[in-house]
């Protein structure tokens, strides 16, 4: 277990209401440098809503979302637009894949570089030395990432033509292109076969270890979660019901109860 040095993401008492419905109820969660943290729970527990609140797609009703980027000052990011959240250094993937279908695989990753490059309309027209350098850096970096997620050979394909598992990996590559310190993965293994899942398992660990990116993931595949997570949070009906290491969670009676119906397919 890697040594916990400092917190990257610190969520305190996050609450999200939709009209009368409380989708997330005072949930607190931390992610520290070098960690892989999983957020699990039955369907409809509010996990994705939690993600959406953290990444700025929804504005949380109450609570604090604090980020402590490495080597930069901390910020409270409640209500930030999601592009700002990404620029700060937290990138995400989506549960139901949201790729840019009619763009090539490479271009999808290049979009990730958008917030790390600065070319303006004028710059794009003039194509000065700086623009060209950035452009080349973007291309190289993107090929590089594609290679890491093993999609290099698909670079010029349209994203919509990729097999399912490859689309999930492309989402990860695209998120990584934004140079995040924390990657939020929303059910990355959904719909994958066992081999693909195993490869994903390795990929996630590799990302953490070689790229030094911490990971927060939502996942239903218990095997994957138990294999790679350092810590696990469990949600049910919008509330946090347990947290701890994989072993603790496995033996936590509350969690077993919450999952009883679903255990069969896990």
């Amino acid at each position: 277990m890697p040594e916990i040095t400092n917190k990257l993401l610190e969520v305190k008492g996050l609450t999200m209401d939709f009209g009368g419905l409380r989708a997330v109820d005072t949930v607190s969660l931390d992610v520290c440098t070098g960690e892989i943290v999983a957020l699990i729970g039955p369907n409809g527990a509010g996990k994705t809503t939690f993600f959406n609140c953290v990444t700025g797609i929804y504005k949380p009703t109450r609570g604090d979302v604090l980020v402590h980027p490495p080597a930069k000052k901390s910020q409270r990011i409640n209500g930030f637009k999601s592009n700002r959240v990404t620029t700060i250094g937290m990138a995400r993937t989506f549960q139901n894949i949201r790729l840019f279908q009619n763009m090539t695989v490479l271009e999808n990753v290049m979009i990730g570089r958008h917030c790390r490059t600065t070319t303006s309309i004028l710059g794009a027209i003039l194509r000065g030395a700086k623009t060209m350098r950035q452009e080349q850096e973007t291309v190289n970096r993107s090929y590089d990432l594609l290679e890491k997620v093993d999609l290099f050979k698909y670079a010029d394909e349209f994203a919509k033509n990729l097999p399912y598992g490859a689309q999930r990996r492309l989402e990860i590559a695209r998120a990584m292109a934004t140079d995040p310190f924390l990657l939020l993965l929303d059910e990355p293994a959904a719909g994958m076969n066992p081999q693909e899942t195993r490869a994903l398992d390795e990929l996630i660990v590799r990302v953490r270890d070689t790229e030094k990116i911490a990971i927060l993931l939502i996942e239903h595949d218990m095997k994957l979660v138990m294999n790679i997570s350092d810590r696990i949070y469990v949600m049910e009906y919008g509330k946090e019901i347990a947290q701890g290491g994989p072993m603790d969670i496995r033996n936590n009676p509350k969690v077993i109860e919450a999952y009883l119906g679903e255990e069969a397919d896990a």
Partner: protein
Amino acid sequence: MQYFLELSCSGLVRGSIYALIALGYTMVYGIIQLINFAHGEIYMIGAFIALIVAGVLTIYGFSGVSILILAGLIATIYAAAYGYTLEKIAYRPLRNAPRLSPLISAIGMSLFLQNYVLLAQTPDFLSFPSLIPDFGFMEPVAHIMGSAELVILVTSAVAMVALTVLIKYTRIGKAMRATQQDMTMARLVGVNVDNVISVTFVLGSVLAAIGGVLVGSYIGQINFYIGFMAGVKAFTAAVLGGIGNIPGAVLGAMVLGLAESFAAGYISSAYEDVFAFGVLVLILILRPSGLLGKAVKQKV
């Protein structure tokens, strides 16, 4: 004060017509999230067919009331047929296409139908027989409201109530609401979604045709182009009220009708359309989902 009443009345009459057309827009949008841009043309075609039928019947010696009934009936039947065909040709093949495609197809259909009527009939204005008998009210009511205006208000109200009842209590109404909620789910539980969509177009077209006939006999003239502006305004009304929401469409239409009428009355009718669109932009900025629309959180 009297002036205010007069303006309110013209606003409400105009609003009722907008409402009849706006309902068609809103129903279609509610179910397949498509702006049926050609909806205004159905209104125009309804008016034209009523004019033609009335003309032919007059020549063959029919009398007042029977003309009104027959012309109205045939116009609505034809409008329904056009609405049905329109959906089958221009929208059904695009059910799974990107969002922009059916919209452009709809604009194309609108241009096509306008020019079809222009070429098949005439580019000129035609005189529309006043099918609604003009029985006189007494002053001071007479100059505020005439019989045609009253008929428009009453017909619109009846049509709207009928529509609400239909959607709330009948089988097809339930199927429509189910489809509106979730098309895939509705299909799974055995709703024939294609039929529901067709019915929606037919219903909307019938309402539009009623509007066309009413306006025709109220104003006394029609040409191939009347559907375009009416359609745009009605759509504006639907958006104002919260598109997809039936009471919203009626409310939006009334707000728009009144806004135009007051703008014309108190400021200048030269800027009438500027006000109409200005109100739209303002409301969309303040309440992007319209007056009665629910803020729909897009599922991520």
